[in-house]
């Protein structure tokens, strides 16, 4: 009896350890529309690495989605609570700017992702790649700095 329980527990632990911890897609992004309101934050044609971590227990990712846009010296994260990234989704920001100016509490205020068009429309644990066009309203907290990105995504092995 005890042996059976122990074996069952062992199998359960094995199953858990095989399950994905997290699944993310990374890619390049270009800013294809960056208004002058953005100042020196981002300009037309600037490229940044993007990481998309969509919500989903099958991906090992929990209930929130994250869109992270990183330059070589700064990082901006849009957290979408309880949803995939999608047109009209509210996001909470967190960032480390290039001067180490920070917004460390992404529950303090929300903005939105005003558009999100992805091909394919959904990502599963076996989707290798996707393309996405999206607009972040109030990038780095700058009012009027609504940036449209073209990005490709590759699932990280």
């Amino acid at each position, binding site marked *: 009896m005890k042996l059976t329980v122990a074996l069952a527990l062992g199998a359960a632990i094995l199953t858990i350890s095989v399950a994905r911890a*997290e699944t*993310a897609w*990374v890619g390049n992004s270009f800013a294809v529309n960056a208004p002058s309101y953005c100042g020196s934050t981002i300009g037309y044609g600037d490229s*940044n*690495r993007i*990481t*998309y*971590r969509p919500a989903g227990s099958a991906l090992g990712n929990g209930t929130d989605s*994250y*869109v*992270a846009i*990183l*330059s*070589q*010296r*700064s*990082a901006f*994260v849009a*957290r979408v609570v309880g949803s995939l990234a999608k047109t009209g989704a509210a996001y909470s920001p*967190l*960032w*480390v700017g*290039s*001067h*180490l*100016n*920070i917004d*460390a*509490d*992404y529950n303090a205020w929300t903005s939105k992702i005003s558009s999100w068009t992805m091909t394919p429309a959904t990502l599963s644990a076996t989707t290798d790649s996707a393309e996405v066009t999206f607009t972040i309203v109030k990038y780095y907290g700058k009012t009027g700095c609504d940036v449209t990105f073209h990005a490709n995504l590759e699932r*990280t*092995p």
Partner: protein
Amino acid sequence: MFDVRATTIAALAILASGPASAFVVWQGEAVVTSATTACAAGTSRTKIAAGTVLRSVVRPMSADASNIAPDRIGFNHDSQSEVAFLLKNGLAYTGTTGSATAVGVTHYGVGKTTATTYGPMKISVAKPTASNPYLKVSGTVKNFMFITGCTVAFRAGYVLRP
């Protein structure tokens, strides 16, 4: 009534200051000289080990009034993860239990704010100002890139950002 002299001085001061620069920071490269095994637990995309090179930014509070306390140092791993440490005991802290807040993003895109510890830390100029073109910093930081159990020792060279 209308103080022409004060206004002129203020106008000249604005002219002299050139392009508005809110913060004075130095940017450079950091090399990891040692790292615990936890830092290398992920894939080759995410692992950090002795020899890893990272982009780094340092912002000593002494350099400008707008560099509000505390001293800060940031690391960026190939535009895939970033961490900024707010060093409550400063860049010249010689102990091993300095208190820091880490803010940034993991290799999987998750934004984080956590408390961690650091030290010792060493900076080549005690109170850097914008007249110091070069800085060196070395030290030890914990929970590097928000990886539990990942302690990293590094040394870094910096250039004043124009």
